[in-house]
C-alpha cells in the first residue's frame, strides 16, 4: 500500500535534507525497537513500549517538524504501515457532524477551533480557564504512532502529534480524593449541527481513571501527520488512549474536571449493556451485537486478529490487575 502524500504540501517542501537525515536516524531507531527493544533515551515511547516519539518540538508550536517529514516508509513499533492521511481524515465517527463515516469530513467546516478555551476544574488545587496555547504549555510535543481500534471492529495506524495528558494533570494538581478525570466536548449546535438531533446526549462526555489518565501512553493530540488536527478529527485538541476503543478518544475538548465518582460517559449512557466506562480493547469480550475477536485494518483485505489492549498489553495490563474485564468492559 502506498502512503499518499498530503496534497497541500508542495513536493519541494516535503523532504528538506535536514529532515531527511532525521528520518534516517528515526528509521534506525524504529528498527532498534523491532530488533528487540533497544531503546535510546529519546525514545520515550520505546521505553514505555507501544507508541514512540520522533523529533520533539516545542509545546508552543502547533505544527511539528514532522509536518515537513516524508512519512513514506514510516511504520509503527510493530512494523505496521500508517493509514493514509486521506483515510484518517475522511472516515470518522464524530456524531456532532452526522452519523455517517464521511459526514464529519463533509460537515465539520462549521467548527471554529480558534480561539478556543479549556476549563480545568473540579477537585484540583489549580483550576483555571486557559486559552489553547496556554493550556498546552506544560506539554512536550511529539509525534506518536498508535493503533486506533474502533468498537465497530475496524482499525487504523495513526501518527498523532501531541503531549502526555499527565503534563497538564500535574499542573492542575488534583486533590488526593480525586479519582477520575472527566472531559467534555464543545456543545454548540451552530458549530456542531449534528447536536440538533438527539442521537446522543450532548455534550459528549468521556473520562478516565486518574491512573489511566497519567499513563505515559495517554496523550492529548493537537495534530495528525505532524499537522494541525483537521476539524473532523477533533480540532483543536482531543484525547487519544490507544489501548481503548476509539470512542474514549473525546474530540474538541472544552473542559477537564477532576472528580471522585466515575464519569458517566455518553456511550455508556446511550446503551450501558453495550458500552462501558473502561472500553478496553479485548478480543475475548464481545460487543453484544458483534464480535471483537477480529478487526478490519483499513487498507487490508482479510480481517486480522484483535490484540488484547490493542497490542499495548505489556504497558497497561497492570492497571487492571485483579479486575474482571467481562464485568468492567
Amino acid at each position, binding site marked *: 500500500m502506498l502512503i499518499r502524500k498530503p496534497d497541500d504540501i508542495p513536493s519541494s517542501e516535503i523532504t528538506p535534507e535536514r529532515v531527511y537525515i532525521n528520518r534516517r536516524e528515526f528509521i534506525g531507531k524504529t528498527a532498534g525497537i523491532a530488533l528487540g527493544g533497544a531503546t535510546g533515551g529519546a525514545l520515550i515511547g520505546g521505553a514505555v513500549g507501544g507508541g514512540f516519539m520522533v523529533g520533539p518540538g516545542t509545546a508552543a508550536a502547533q505544527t511539528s517538524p514532522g509536518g515537513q517529514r516524508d512519512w513514506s516508509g514510516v511504520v509503527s513499533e510493530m512494523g505496521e504501515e500508517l493509514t493514509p492521511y486521506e*483515510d484518517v481524515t*475522511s472516515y470518522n465517527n464524530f*456524531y456532532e457532524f452526522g452519523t455517517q463515516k464521511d459526514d464529519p469530513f463533509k460537515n465539520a467546516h462549521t467548527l471554529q477551533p480558534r480561539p478556543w478555551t479549556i476549563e480545568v476544574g473540579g477537585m484540583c488545587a489549580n483550576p483555571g480557564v486557559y486559552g489553547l496555547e496556554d493550556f498546552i504549555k506544560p506539554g512536550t510535543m511529539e509525534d506518536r504512532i498508535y493503533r486506533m481500534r474502533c468498537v465497530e471492529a475496524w482499525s487504523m495506524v495513526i501518527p498523532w502529534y501531541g503531549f502526555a495528558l499527565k503534563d497538564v494533570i500535574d499542573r492542575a494538581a488534583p486533590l488526593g480524593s480525586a479519582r477520575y478525570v472527566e472531559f467534555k466536548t464543545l456543545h454548540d449546535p451552530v458549530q456542531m449541527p449534528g447536536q440538533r438531533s438527539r442521537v*446522543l446526549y450532548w455534550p459528549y462526555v468521556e473520562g478516565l481513571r486518574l491512573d489511566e489518565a497519567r499513563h505515559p501512553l495517554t496523550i492529548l493530540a493537537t495534530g495528525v501527520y505532524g499537522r494541525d488536527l483537521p476539524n473532523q478529527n477533533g480540532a483543536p485538541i482531543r484525547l487519544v488512549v490507544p489501548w481503548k476503543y476509539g470512542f474514549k478518544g473525546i474530540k474538541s475538548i472544552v473542559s477537564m474536571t477532576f472528580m471522585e465518582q466515575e464519569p458517566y460517559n455518553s456511550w455508556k449512557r446511550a446503551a450501558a449493556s453495550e458500552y462501558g466506562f473502561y472500553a478496553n480493547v479485548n478480543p475475548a469480550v464481545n460487543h453484544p*451485537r458483534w*464480535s471483537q475477536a*477480529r478487526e478490519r485494518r*483499513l*487498507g487490508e483485505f482479510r480481517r486480522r486478529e484483535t490484540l488484547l489492549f490493542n497490542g499495548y498489553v505489556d504497558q497497561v495490563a497492570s492497571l487492571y490487575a485483579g479486575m474482571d474485564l467481562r464485568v468492567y468492559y
Partner: protein
Amino acid sequence: MKRRRLLLKGLVWVLGLAPLVWLLWRGFTDRLGANPIEEVLHRLGDTALIALLVTLSITPIRRLTGWNSLAPLRRPVGLFAFFYLTMHFLWYSVVDQTLDLAFIIEDIVERPYILAGVTAWLLLIPLAVTSTKGWIRRLKKNWKRLHRLVYVATSLGVLHFYWQVKADTYWPLVATTVLVVLMLLRFRWRRA
C-alpha cells in the same frame, strides 16, 4: 398499451441496474472511501431493502391510481431485490468474512441481526424460484399464499437493519414506517 408496458419494463431494468453500475463505477475509479468492503456491503443492503419495499408498494399504488399496467412489474422488481440481497449475502460471506465458516456460523448463532437477515434471505429463495409463469399455474391458489412470505421476509429485513444501528435509528424508522403503511393498506383492502 403494449408500448407502455415495454417502456415501464425498460425503466425497471435501468433503475434496477443503476445501483450496480454506480457501485462498479465507484469501485473502478477508487471512490468507495476508506473502507470499501463495508461501503459495498451497506449499499447492497440498502438497495435490497429499497427494492423489497418498492415491490410491496406496486399493488397499493396500482389500486390507488388504477394503473393496472404496473402489475407485471412486481416480478422484475422482486427479482432485482433478490439479486441485490444475494449479492449482499455473498459479499458478507466471501469478501467481508473471507468464507471463514467458524466466524460466519458464530455470527448467525450469536447475533440476532444476522439471524434475521439470513432467515429473510432463505425465505425469499422459494419465492424467487417460483416466480415464473409455469409455477404460478402449477401452484394455483397456493402461489398467492406462498408469496405472502415476502411480508415476513421484508419485516425481518427491517428488523435486521434496526438491530445493527448503534444510535441513529432514523433510516430504520423510515423503513419501518413505510412497511407498516403498506401492510395496513393491504389489511384494509382484504377486509373491504
